[in-house]
């Protein structure tokens, strides 16, 4: 089967090392994961994220519809502000995590993951009956890229007609980038400050505008980064990978996403009753971060054992080397009693047990040194 290509494919083909990522031909790295990771932590990098899902929801019932679909409360959003949320099934399992932006009282821009892109849109469609809302899947008609790092804002500002430095975190703005109409949002998936840039009216079949915007940002200093660095950066920041760290077998209380669930909002939301029941009964496991004390790199699927190494208590949902820290880190779900910081655990790495402990995971790094909250 032919791999799906994004707007930026021509650049990847010339400069990148391309892999099959969920059916998309995406660059895993250009120069190398370590250099790209470092560029984003210390300066500025750019990622093609056009494989992700994005839709427009418009019409008189848009707010009511989205509030029914999502756990977070969109009614408190100001114009041009956005928020992070999850979307649940009836049993309170997480279908996906998403970011919603309010463009007007009856117009919201919705951004979600590549792996769940078709499923999410089908779920919207399945539930939109009865609401006066028009849904448009823009994923193939709008390019998307992320410019991330401590120098990201000034880099985007350099190629934008408008001043973007005042855009609030999770805010959205309508701007002209390299001469083309775009949305920019003050968001990302690296823990760093930066923008996601969406090139409007740019179909995958004629991607010239997107390639020009990409080129202008690269020219302005953003280092092209592949999925390898995207994954190591998001893991260091403790950000979930949908389909792996969170999925329909996990509820928001287990995932420590209680803060995006608004039980009291008007009209409720899909999965609310199930989640209230779960809350009453109490969850048996919660997400934790593990930092390696001994040598070894934890990986997705590896077993986590108690400190004595006698009992398997969970498994790694995401793991890897944290390039900024120099040791292995992991996310996983462990029974209550293993969530206190400093609790020793073991990870089975091939034939041996490697020592780790529960650490702060959101983010894993010191946020006064790295990330958007850093001391500048």
């Amino acid at each position, binding site marked *: 089967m032919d791999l799906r290509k994004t707007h930026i494919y021509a650049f990847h083909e010339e400069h990148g*090392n391309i892999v099959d990522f969920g059916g998309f031909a995406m660059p*895993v*790295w250009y120069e*190398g*994961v*370590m250099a790209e*990771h470092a560029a984003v932590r210390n300066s500025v990098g750019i990622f093609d994220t056009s494989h992700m899902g994005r839709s427009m929801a418009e019409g008189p019932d848009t707010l009511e519809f989205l509030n029914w679909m999502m756990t977070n409360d969109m009614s408190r959003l100001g114009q041009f502000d956005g928020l992070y949320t999850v979307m649940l099934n009836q049993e309170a399992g997480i279908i996906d995590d998403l970011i919603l932006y309010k463009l007007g009282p009856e117009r919201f821009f919705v951004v979600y993951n590549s792996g769940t892109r078709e499923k999410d849109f089908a779920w919207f469609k399945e539930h939109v009956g009865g609401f006066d809302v028009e849904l448009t899947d823009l994923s193939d008609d709008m390019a998307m890229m992320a410019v991330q790092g401590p120098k990201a804002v000034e880099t985007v500002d350099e190629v934008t007609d408008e001043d973007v430095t005042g855009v609030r975190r999770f805010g959205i703005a309508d701007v002209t980038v390299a001469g083309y109409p775009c949305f920019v949002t003050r968001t990302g998936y690296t823990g760093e400050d930066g923008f996601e840039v969406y090139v409007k009216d740019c179909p995958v079949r004629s991607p010239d505008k997107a390639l020009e915007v990409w080129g202008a940002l690269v020219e302005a200093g953003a280092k092209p980064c592949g999925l*390898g660095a995207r*994954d*190591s950066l998001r893991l260091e920041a403790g950000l979930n990978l949908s389909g792996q760290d969170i999925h329909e077998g996990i509820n928001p209380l287990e995932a420590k996403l209680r803060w995006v669930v608004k039980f009291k909002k008007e009209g409720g939301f899909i999965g609310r009753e199930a989640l209230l029941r779960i809350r009453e009964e109490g969850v048996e496991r919660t997400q934790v971060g593990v930092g390696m004390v001994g*040598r*070894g*790199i934890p*990986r997705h699927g590896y077993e986590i054992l108690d400190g004595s190494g006698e009992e398997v208590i969970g498994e790694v949902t995401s793991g*890897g*080397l944290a*390039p900024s820290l120099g040791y292995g880190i992991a996310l996983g779900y462990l029974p209550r009693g293993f969530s206190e910081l400093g609790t020793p655990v073991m990870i089975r*790495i*091939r034939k041996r047990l490697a020592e780790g402990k529960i650490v702060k995971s959101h983010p894993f790094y010191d946020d006064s040194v790295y990330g958007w909250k850093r001391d500048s």
Partner: protein
Amino acid sequence: MEEGFVMSEEYEVPEGLHYTEEHEWARVLDDGTVLIGVTDYAQKQLHEIVYVELPEVGDVAERMGIVGALESVKAVSDMNSPVSGEFVEVNEELLDSPELVNESPYGDGWYAKLKPSDLDGDLARLMDAAAYREHLEHQEH
């Protein structure tokens, strides 16, 4: 095949070594011990190697048994021993400098040294440089 020709040009395949289909090499030393490592192709596929897991001296390897691993940020690759035998030395430099495998896969990036237990039998099942070059031509690029 034009493409195959280009590929063998891209990867260094020294003469005199013995190769596995999984991209390990073995070099028989004058004293009868065997040095093992991974090929230029293997290190280029993994790209930046950030972690190497070594066996311990005294461990026994079966031919093509997994004896450790090499890892990049993104990927894990098992290390198989091209020959059976007992480890008499491991390259501990790789613990602190795994990048040696990238820089010098046939030299400073060697993996371990074995006292072979069935050298002739094992060598008969390994490829010479010409056969390994041919094998590389059939790898996915």
